[in-house]
């Protein structure tokens, strides 16, 4: 069984990423590649739906941090949805909940881009 898979789809101009499994130093390249793929296509509104994500280590958080400036610099944002307790807790431990917008559901995260022309960061 793959340790991580990342499916993607576009909805209303928002790129959705679905990491399934866990993100650590071993699997992070796949996650990073999917983010970079979106950026290369000029997609800067990104939602990471974490429903299938059981675990994220600092390597995965680093991948998000490494891309966020380019994303926000292009008027977009990377937002997160459906964090399980473990993943939410890791975000809180690091204070990432103050740096990134986190939504209870994917729909809320997508619609959040409609307000204020979809730009901005928390």
């Amino acid at each position, binding site marked *: 069984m793959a*340790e991580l898979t990342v499916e993607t789809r576009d909805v209303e101009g928002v790129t959705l990423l679905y990491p399934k499994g*866990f993100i*650590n*130093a*071993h699997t992070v390249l796949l996650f990073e590649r999917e983010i970079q793929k979106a950026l290369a296509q000029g997609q800067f509104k990104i939602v990471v739906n974490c429903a299938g994500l059981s*675990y994220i*280590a*600092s*390597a995965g*958080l*680093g*991948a998000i*941090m*490494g891309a*966020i*400036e380019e994303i926000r610099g292009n008027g977009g944002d990377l937002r997160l949805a459906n964090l399980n*307790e*473990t993943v939410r*807790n*890791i975000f809180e*431990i*690091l*204070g*990432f909940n*103050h*740096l990134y917008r986190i939504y209870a559901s994917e729909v809320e995260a997508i619609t959040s881009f409609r307000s204020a022309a979809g730009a901005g960061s928390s």
Partner: protein
Amino acid sequence: MARAKPSLMLSIPSQTSFLSLVREVTKKMAESAGFSDGTADRLALAVDEATTNVIEHAYHGSGDREVELRIEDRGPEFRVEVVDDGTTVDPRAVPRVDLGRYVSERRTGGLGVHLMEKIMDSVTFRRTARRNVCTLVKRKESSRAR
């Protein structure tokens, strides 16, 4: 006679593909020691980070070395030692985490040590017999409040 508390020693190749095993073993041991599911997950993350540090910094990504893990339920505390014989990395040289600067300067290093320190009650590094030992300790008493 009191039953001995569980302890486990594990030696893995210095390859990130073994991190999932490290996580599973640590979580199992933490649960056996009586930690909640959530705390056991966090302890597994801290040990994952310590092992990743060894692979990436002490061994510079070389996959033919060995990382030794000693996981012990010591009664009042849960203790994990991560041992390597690679380059000594001075944890004091790791810059403290400043999240604002992380975003503006695109810095991503140092997060692992920061996470370890946030999760554990103590994280210490020492050099002994030409080996580096990172010791992670979580007191059972302290975990009740988290």
